Each structure stands twice: as C-alpha cells, then as structure tokens.
C-alpha cells in the first residue's frame, strides 16, 4: 500500500479538483491514523481470496431490450436552467485553444 503522507494527500486532492488548506491536510493525516487501524480490521480477516468482490447486493441483470418509445427530450431552456454561464443557448466556458 502506498505510504500516506501530505504529498500523497495533496496529489489526491489535486486529482479531485479541489484545494485544501495545510491545516486541513494535517487533520486528514491524523484521521488516517485512526482509519488505518480501522482498516486493519479488514486486513485481519483470513480467507477473503475465496470471495469475489461484491459490487451489488444481488444480481439485477436485465436480459431484454426495451421497446423504442418516443419521448420528448429536455428543452434547451430546461437543460441550461441551472448553468451559471450561458451564451447563445450553450454553456460558455473559458477558451481551451487559442
């Protein structure tokens, strides 16, 4: 397992697209002390390799194709109604190129 230090936490926060203060990173590092001990309750369990990782409580596979049913899509106004930056019926963001 990757060693837990401030740099690793900063890297994770950066990938998650937010900033945290130095104090917050230290609080989180302290939290990891307890968390690591709590996670050890799982490491102690023997024979887990026999179990498949459980991703859902039970199978809910749908094995048929639904009929094509025409529906009315969102209007432009609805789709943009919660966007904070809109121009000419499109979401406006800073230029990526040029």
């Amino acid at each position, binding site marked *: 397992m990757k060693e837990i230090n401030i740099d690793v936490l900063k890297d994770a926060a950066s990938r998650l697209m937010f900033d945290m203060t130095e104090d*917050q990173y230290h609080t989180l590092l302290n939290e990891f002390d307890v968390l690591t001990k*709590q996670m050890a309750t*799982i490491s102690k*369990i023997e024979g887990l390799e026999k179990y498949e*990782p459980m991703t859902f409580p039970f199978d809910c596979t749908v094995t048929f194709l639904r009929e094509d049913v025409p529906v009315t899509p969102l209007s432009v106004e609805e789709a943009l109604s919660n966007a904070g930056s809109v121009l000419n019926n499109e979401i406006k963001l800073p230029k990526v190129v040029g």
Partner: protein
Amino acid sequence: MSYLDLSIREIHAAYVEKKVKPLELTKEALLRAKANQDNCFEYICEKEALEFAEKLTEVEEDNLLWGIPYVAKDNLSTKGIPTCASSNILKGYVPIYDARVIEILKEKKAVLIGKTTLDELAMGGSGMTGHLGYTYNPYDPDHKRMIGGSSCGSASATAASIVPFALGSDTGDSVRKPASYGGLVGLKPTWGRISRYGLFPFAPSMDHVGFFTRHVEDAAIVLNALSGRDDRDSTSSFKPVEDYLEATKAKKQYKVAVIPEIVDSISDKELLAEFNKTLDKLKENGACIDYVHMDPASLSSIYATYFVISCAEATSNNANLDGIKFGPYYEGNSYQEVMRKARTNGFSELIKRRFVIGSFALMSENQEELFLRAQRNRAKIVSEVNAVLKDHDFIFVPAAPSVAPLFNASGDKLSSEYLIADNHMAIGNFGGLPSITVPFALENGLPLGANITGRAFEDGEVLNFAKQVEDVTGLGGLSAKKEDR
C-alpha cells in the same frame, strides 16, 4: 391533540368523515414547520403546498395517502423546488424533474410541505455537517443532543409531529439510526424495492430510499405506495409487490436471532435491561428467541468495510458536481480553474476528506488491498448474515448503543461499542436486506430503538414482526411533543 398527530389511517378516516380538510392540515403542518427551532428545513414549500392542497376537495376513499402532508430529504429531486443536499456546491439548484418517489406521492395526492436538512450530500451520521449547521433532536429542547443522520431533518420533523411521514435515504443506517434517536419507525426496504430515480447518488451499491413514520402500519401504507419496478432505475426489481398493509395484520410466530456479540458490546446497562424486557415480552407473545453467535472479527470489520466502499463510490459519483452544469459558477481562466474553484468553495472540509480517502482507496497501488478487499469482505459478511437468516426469520438487536448522544460526546473509535454496536446496521445495506428500526423503550425520557433485519424481499414479514414489537411495547405513535410524554 390535532388530527396531524394521528396515524395516516386515522387522518384518512377524518377526511372521509369530513371532520377536517387537507388544506386545514397542510396549513397546520406549515405553521409547525415555520415555528420549528430544530433546523429541520432547507426549504418550506408553503406556496406550492397550499396550491396543491387547495385542489384536494373530493376525498379518495381508497387512497390512504390522499391529502397527507409529508416532507422529503433534500437529496431527492423535486421539480421546480430548490434541492441542494445541504451542500453549498448545489446552492440554488432547482431540479427540472421529480424523483420517482416524489412523482408517486404527487399521484397519490400527498402534500409535500418541505425539503429537509441532511448531513452534507448524505455523507455522515450525526446531523451536524449540513451547510445550515446542526439539526437538533426535538426530545432535547436544550439542543444538546443529536437526532443522528444523515436523514436528520426528516427524522426531526417526524419526531416533532410536523408530519406523519417523511422520506429519507439510507446508505449505512441513515434512516434507521435517526429513527432510533427520535423514537420513530424507520424503514429501509429491500434494495431494488423502491426506485432510486432522482435520489442523488452517494454509494449506489448501498443507497436506498427509506422513510420515517410514527406507526408501523403507516410504514406499510407508505411502502405499498412507493414499491415497484421503474425502468428509469435499472436496479429496481421486477419482483411482484405484495400488500404490505395486509402483511402486518395477522400475527405470525417467528424465529428470531439475537446476536450476543452485538448486544454484549453495549455498555449502557439500562438499555440492555430494557432490551431484555422486550425480548421477554416477545417470547410471551409467541416469538422463539435464539442467541446466535457471529464472528466478532467480521462484525468489527463492518465499519471499515462500509467506510472504504462508500467513500470510494462517493468520490466517483460526485465527479459531476463541477459548478458548470449546475451549482454556483466561479469565473476562471480555464475550465479546470472554474471547476476547481466551484469544488473548493462548494464542498466542506469533511466532504473533501471523504473524497480523498475514497481516492486513496482507489489508487492503483491500494485498490487490491483496500477497495477490492473491502468488497470481498462485504461478500463474506453478507454470506455470514444470510447463514443466520437461513434458520431464523430475523436478526433482532438494539439499533444503537445508547440514546441520542450529546453533540460534544467523544468516544473511542476503535472500541467494540463503536465498531460493532454503533455500526452493525450497514449489514442491511451490504446485503440489500429489509431492515426497520422501532422504538422499544424510553430512558430518562429519551427513546431507544431496536432493529429488525430480514431476508431480501421479505419486507412484509419484517413489518409484521415490527408491528408485534410495537404492540408489546405500546410505543406506537410516539412523538417528542410534550403532551405525548
């Protein structure tokens, strides 16, 4: 006593007999909501509720939810009504569609009077982390005790008798724990029984729509209305829906498993004495109570398993909260800067910490040891729980190790009491099992809850036994209103 303090069936009878009208009860519920000092509400839908209730003039005798006021947790999408999941990242967001459960209740002509507070984005169990601050337990007018979370506002509003029922969501115990602290019936049905379309996802492999009532029969009425397949939630079940109200009627004799490793990790002697008294009453009532051991190492690992999986799923599921499509927009020189500012300003420190923990568990170097190992352990715990339920109808244990804790209480996060007694109810989410909390006693005027977990899709049996617990304790209809105590 007002009609608003009665059960759903009693209110319905009053409507049929024309003793009261939905508009009158809606006005009274709104008055109570506006006078509430427990920070239950993100938004009180006064205008919308009055307009809706005004149209309800011809009582539908076969529809028990007709005209019944209710509230919904603010992580359920409500068309035209602000919904922010108690997070600044969604401040000002107004959904353009209704969650399936909201849609159904509109069709049933139940009256939504407000959206309730929660732990931010439903991640938490204290009711302390929403952007509006603490939500209080109405049983403690001094505001020193929590109602629990994450469905804090819905629990508090039902316990304060503002409404007869309230929608919530439950990923670890977010309906069933606050139900325990608030003297309520709190039901998390089988995973897939109620559509989650329009529920903001936290950890979809464990998320459920659940609800609070003050009577077990009311829980059956609400489950009858909300259950069923919805094509817009591919995980909702095709299994036929039984009549849950009917299922509560005939008293059945059940074989019940009490898990000593959970009970013995509780230090509150008064709680244990009351729980044992309840077991005696249930035995006299015909239940067969067995003490069935479970592996303490498995039980101790429930919390960590839940935490790793839920944080990892949450990290991924909340990636869409970027301040671009919805939520407050912040100017920047690049779209990355726009997103970074929105997420930095929008998420509280606690949420950021959870996301970093989830991201850490998902890092390629850690994934096998943390995330996949937690998922394997989930499978093991579920197989052990299902083994107990093979020979017994239910697991029956205290829902929490104490009455509602004080906000400033501190505890040992590595103790058995914390790891097992305070967190065991996540087994219901791991296995998608129906699970309900019902009050079983009062300790110094504060409620204590017991939890019943049954086999998948046997929600009716769980409700039947919950009704028996309610009958033997005589605590149906409990509320924090002074005259009730």
